[in-house]
């Protein structure tokens, strides 16, 4: 396999080359017709990751796809899959007197069950700060020894190691005023959840490039072996995505599902062993509460016993309460690939990015935000 030079890994004009795109699309048209004939209708692939949803929309490629191909958005946007109950817990943390909440920007606008978000908490006097790295939150805790600094940890295997690294650093520094939430979700169990639904219509998974860079290819093997569903780990440039779709179509046409790696300039079969070690030290596999799905055993990461003292939820004794989804919102169905954003009665009417009802419209990587912003 050809390996990319460091420079080629980060930038290449070929990634958005029009002629290459045209030939990939021509190939796709032939393959999609064959695949659709085999499946007796359309071919449905799911892009699991929110960054793929955004990249597909931003490149305007949906209208270039053959008519037989449908790309469904999956449960891979960190903000979208965080349950209403966990969002309420984030807001409860922000209400603890004296606490500084540090968070990635996306979380600011996600509304809890009472209609408040972190923006609103800030207006009411909570100290909420956007950081670019959890290490900035650790530095803040060092600089403000008299205040409790909480980082809002959400996301998948991609963000978990970075936050795990920050927590490990805080432990090494002996910081008593730093803690984090661990509302982490795992991608492979999410795929299993989708596939175990007998009504699922998924003919292939475009697997997340960044998550796979951490966990490698092995954890996806069951998808191809047990469920006979094709998988391709894919990068985020337009030609990565077109190539990834063609690889999926070829697997469908050949009838030989496997786990392939289109994004091999970044993703290696064994993943990132350093990050994996960190994950297994700081976190442990635990139940997670998914929006629209509920709390499911062994689908997330929580703090390990050694790091339990850094769990903000325990430190501030924040209870979990199930909270209903916003009324009329179809985020749940959209996250499960059962509906597209325009199928939701609120989409573009009661629910727009500036007054979002559901998290799929709030997050910049949510399926609804992508459809609204880029027209699908």
């Amino acid at each position: 396999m050809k390996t990319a030079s460091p420079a080629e890994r980060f930038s290449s004009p070929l990634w958005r080359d029009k002629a290459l795109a045209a030939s990939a699309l021509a190939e796709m048209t032939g393959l999609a017709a064959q695949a659709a004939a085999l499946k007796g209708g359309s071919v449905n692939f799911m892009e699991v990751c929110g960054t793929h949803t955004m990249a597909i929309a931003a490149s305007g490629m949906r209208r270039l796809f053959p008519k037989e191909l449908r790309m469904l958005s999956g449960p891979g946007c960190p903000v979208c899959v965080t349950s209403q109950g966990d969002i309420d817990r984030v807001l409860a943390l922000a209400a603890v007197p004296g606490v500084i909440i540090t968070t990635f920007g996306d979380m600011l606008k996600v509304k809890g069950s009472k209609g408040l978000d972190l923006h609103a908490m800030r207006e009411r006097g909570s100290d909420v700060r956007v950081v670019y790295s959890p290490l900035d939150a650790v530095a803040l805790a060092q600089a403000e020894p008299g205040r409790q600094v909480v980082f809002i940890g959400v996301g998948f295997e991609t963000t978990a190691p970075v936050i795990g690294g920050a927590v490990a650093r805080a432990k090494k520094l002996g910081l008593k005023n730093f803690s984090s939430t661990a509302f982490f979700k795992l991608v492979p169990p999410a795929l299993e959840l989708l596939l175990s639904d007998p009504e699922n219509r998924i003919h292939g998974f475009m697997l997340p490039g960044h998550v796979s860079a951490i966990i490698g290819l092995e954890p996806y093997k069951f998808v191809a072996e047990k469920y006979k569903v094709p998988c391709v780990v894919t990068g985020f440039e337009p030609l990565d995505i077109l190539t990834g779709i063609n690889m999926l179509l070829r697997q469908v046409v050949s009838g030989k599902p496997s786990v392939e790696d289109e994004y091999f300039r970044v993703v290696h079969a064994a993943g990132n062993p350093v990050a994996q070690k960190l994950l297994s030290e700081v976190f442990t596999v635990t139940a997670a509460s998914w929006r629209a799905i509920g709390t499911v055993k062994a689908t997330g990461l929580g703090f390990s016993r050694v790091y339990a003292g850094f769990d903000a939820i325990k430190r501030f004794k924040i209870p979990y309460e199930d909270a209903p989804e916003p009324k009329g919102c179809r985020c749940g169905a959209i996250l499960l690939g059962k509906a597209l954003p325009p199928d939701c009665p609120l989409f573009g009417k009661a629910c727009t990015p500036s007054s979002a009802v559901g998290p799929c419209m709030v997050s910049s990587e949510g399926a609804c935000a992508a459809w609204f912003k880029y027209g699908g």
Partner: protein
Amino acid sequence: MALAKVVLGHGSGGRLSRDLVEQVFLKSFSNPSLKPLEDSAEVKVGGVTLAFTTDSYVVTPVEFPGADIGRVAVCGTVNDLAVKGARPAALSAGFILEEGFPGDLLLRITRSMRRAADEAGVSIVTGDTKVVERGKADGIFINTAGVGLIPKGRCLTSSAVKPGDVIIVSGNLADHGVAVMNARDRLGLQGGIKSDAAPLNGMIEGLLRAPGVRAMRDITRGGLATVLNEVSGACGLTAELEENSVPVSPASRNACALLGLDPLYVANEGKIAVFCAPSAAPRALQALRAHRYGRNAVVVGRMLKEKKPQVRLVTAIGGARVLLMLEGEQLPRIC
């Protein structure tokens, strides 16, 4: 919908800012000079036409690679005059200072303002100072206003843009916004990204020597996408942009990709969008490129007559998508 209260997004330069202007200011102040909502207003005084504009500047940090709040305050107002075809005649400067603001920093900022004004060939002829208690302001806020003379026969306005007109941008986009964010949040992004803040009246005078320019816009907050939405709304035409033609430096492009920002929505302080007849485009490009601030000028798209006017991006791979006005603030993303 009535305005309940002001939120940060009202200052983003995008759709929320537009709503605020329409629902509050336009309603209260309505008059023919204000109505077009362009970069500066046209006012007729004793047989001559003046361009008149004002802008307030708040930026953290006050100094960043390539410029500072003072340079931006002068350039922004000069450029708002120049894009209406006006020759800047005089500026004012109002300062709101927070108690405790360092004197040497204030002197550096005012000297920088002087240098920018000298470059633009205009003087700051009047001013005002207020000092507020510590905590009541963020160091320094500057307001500048400017007047300029629009020479007889010049009429540059978005509503004059015609189907088939080409869209030119005067150089690389997004440098200013990325440079400020990099400095404010100490992101440590390398590649020497600098603010593009510059007075563009010299470049624009050169451009206007050739005929065929119908309108110009200063591409500041909200970026090119927002400007095109405003122009499309004013002239009732579709603006079609070619992604492959939009000039963005590799450093800024990578920074935007990393932060999840779209360069088409990031602020600039030294770039304009020019709308001109297709036959005038070669001369316009030549004139822009002859100036140091327009060296990377390039045609990025065209205006089209369509049933439902929109701003559309033809993507690098030949797809297409709509460019809406910026909704609220652009927020950095999780992953």
